[in-house]
């Protein structure tokens, strides 16, 4: 294949470089031009695998096929929307980081070989951390640092797996891997850390709520979904992923019930959503793989929409905590409408995008007659709706009147939210458009009478349960709090563990140091003043310890006398010449020993 193509990833990354040179409206126009150019570059490349460069004798390749194209399309769409949402941001650092981050994500999904994949994978980690830091708070500094540590650990695991694999197979090609041997487990570990599979998920719920209002739109789209892509590419039909996916759907629900920070609620619900995708990949049937891919497309749009809506509230009021909000529908009605469209989409209401994608995974589990998987996925669908999805608009826009009367969101934010909301509704009403770009032919009809009715019944009666629980006062009230999760292990557990092990070791170190560097030299100096007399005192002291009571007084007196006289007259048992000869012998031995060891 020829290399006369321009990779879309490089359009975004090269485009990012020029951003700081523009100001105001010119910069805005330029920012929108970059993703459009990337899209054009993507469309200009026919499907296939191309060699783009070579590194250390390995070809770096770019692969365009059905699976990677879906991810490419939605990544570029959300980059465009996210940049509009960030129009009001004055500095250029964040936009540069966002464009490079988006470019790295595109590079990863179009990577045809493991080396290209690894390069873009690590570039994503660095740029994502930069986006988290752009919030410029103490909390975001810490969260960004922890983000980097966790992802570098994942990246090292991936690198180790890649090296083992390339050595074993001699090929750097990135295709189906499957669970077989240490290399595949290491690669899988690297992937599922980015997919945020519990207990390796805490980086996400730790960092995303601390990122900037505009940055989190990009964060929520790329890292986890790139992980979903590589899992779909390398581990389809791996049963372990079914288990991981089901855990991901259920585990976050307990946290969304208790959590006060609504961006953290969204982060937990993001994990729940990615769980459906991983389950689909683990099932590995055509319907399940299409379902997982379709769900990625829909999910990126409505999750970004929700982060944008809650972000607009945070931008206007300075908080996104349920305890401090309420009654905002009075002055932010447009944001409220967009938020509810996002909620309807994520909850999979008929006529909204989630409905046409989430149900594919559930049906696929049903078709395989996996009763427990199906049951838990349905439980998670029923549970996440009231606890995460009703909760967000309810506590922001309704509930009690917080007295806050913020302005409506800025126009650029409304435009960005409007575009995402339009796509959510469009896909919900006209799913054929989405199904037509799926990697495999879609043979699935979402709008059947029984499916619509059963889904509506599930959601409406789950909402009834929420209403009953809230009105009866049983529902756990929102409280200002931190809820412990697995990040406790490295934020509290590890430092405590280190001091638990470290404190006794530090004491030992101190004592050993004292013995070696204070007591021993002092003794040698004292001993050297008159060795024969010193020897007498030492043996006398030892003798005193073991002698009987009748002798003790006499010996004690003698030792006391010797101590009083010490060092006394030196006996000098050796002449100076003999001593010097002795030292020479020691030096000679020393020389020979070092000479031999130097060989």
């Amino acid at each position, binding site marked *: 294949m020829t290399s006369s193509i321009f990779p879309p990833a490089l359009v975004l990354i090269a485009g990012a470089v020029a951003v700081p040179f523009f100001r105001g409206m010119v910069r805005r126009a330029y920012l929108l031009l970059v993703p459009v150019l990337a899209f054009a570059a993507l469309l200009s490349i026919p499907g296939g695998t191309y060699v783009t460069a070579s590194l250390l004798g390995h070809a770096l390749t770019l692969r365009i096929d059905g699976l990677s194209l879906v991810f490419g399309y939605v990544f570029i769409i959300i980059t465009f929307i996210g940049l509009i949402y960030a129009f009001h941001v004055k500095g250029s650092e964040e936009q540069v980081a966002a464009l490079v981050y988006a470019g790295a994500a595109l590079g990863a999904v179009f990577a045809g070989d493991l080396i290209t994949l690894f390069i873009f994978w690590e570039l994503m980690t660095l740029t994502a951390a930069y986006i988290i830091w752009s919030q410029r708070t103490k909390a975001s500094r810490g969260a960004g640092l922890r983000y980097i540590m966790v992802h570098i650990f994942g990246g090292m695991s991936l690198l180790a797996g890649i090296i083992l694999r390339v050595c074993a197979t001699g090929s750097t090609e990135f295709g189906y891997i499957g669970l077989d041997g240490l290399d595949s487990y290491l690669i899988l570990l690297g992937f599922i850390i980015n997919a945020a599979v519990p207990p390796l998920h805490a980086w996400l719920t730790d960092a995303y709520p601390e990122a900037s209002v505009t940055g989190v739109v990009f964060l929520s789209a790329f890292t986890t979904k790139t992980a979903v892509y590589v899992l779909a590419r390398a581990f389809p039909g791996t049963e372990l992923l079914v288990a991981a996916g089901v855990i991901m759907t259920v585990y976050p629900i*307990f946290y969304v019930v208790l959590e006060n920070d609504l961006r953290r609620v969204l982060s937990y619900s993001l994990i729940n959503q990615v769980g459906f995708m991983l389950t689909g990949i683990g099932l590995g049937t055509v319907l399940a793989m299409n379902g997982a891919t379709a769900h990625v497309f829909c999910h990126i749009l409505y999750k970004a929409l929700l982060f944008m809506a809650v972000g607009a509230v945070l931008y206007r009021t300075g908080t996104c905590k349920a305890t401090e909000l309420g009654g905002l529908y*009075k002055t932010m009605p447009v944001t409220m409408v967009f938020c509810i469209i996002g909620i309807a989409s994520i909850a999979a209401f008929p006529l909204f995008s989630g409905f046409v994608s989430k149900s594919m995974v559930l049906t696929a589990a049903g078709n395989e*007659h996996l009763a427990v998987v199906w049951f838990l996925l349905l439980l998670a669908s029923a549970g996440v709706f009231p*606890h995460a999805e009703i909760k967000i608009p309810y506590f922001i826009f309704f509930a009690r009147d917080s007295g806050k009367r913020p302005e409506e969101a800025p126009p650029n934010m409304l435009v960005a939210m409007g575009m995402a909301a339009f796509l959510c509704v469009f896909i919900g009403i006209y799913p054929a458009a989405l199904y037509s770009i799926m990697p495999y032919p879609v043979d699935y009809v979402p709008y059947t009478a029984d499916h619509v009715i059963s889904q509506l019944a599930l959601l409406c009666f789950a909402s009834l349960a929420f209403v009953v629980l809230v009105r009866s006062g049983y*529902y756990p009230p929102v409280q200002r709090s931190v809820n412990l999760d697995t990040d406790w292990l490295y934020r509290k557990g590890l430092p405590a563990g280190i001091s638990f092990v470290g404190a006794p070791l530090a004491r030992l170190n101190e004592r050993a140091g004292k013995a070696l560097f204070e007591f021993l030299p002092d003794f040698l100096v004292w001993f050297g003043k008159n060795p024969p007399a010193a020897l007498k005192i030492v043996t006398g002291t030892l003798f005193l310890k073991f002698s009987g009571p009748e002798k003790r007084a006499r010996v004690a007196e003698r030792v006391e006398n010797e101590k009083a006289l010490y060092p006394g007259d030196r006996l000098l048992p050796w002449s100076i010449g003999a001593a010097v000869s002795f030292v020479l012998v020691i030096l000679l031995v020393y020389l020979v020993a070092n000479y031999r060891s130097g060989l």
Partner: protein
Amino acid sequence: MKKELDFFEKPKNKKALWIIYIAILVLLLTIDLFIPQHAHFYWDGIPVFYALFGFAGCVLLAVIAKNLRPFLKREENYYD
């Protein structure tokens, strides 16, 4: 300052919304009884299975979460 909306403050509107909500619930239950389900297992073919499951599942998860709170909850500045 532009005018504020107060649609949800008016008792009349609140009442209307409640009536619509309850009507939808009743309607869904009624239709569910007459629509044949393409069931994957024997239980999801039972009429009103999804309504019951939605309600019970939501309550179950809330009860578990509420009982987990004493173990998970810490002060807001716990990590500072």
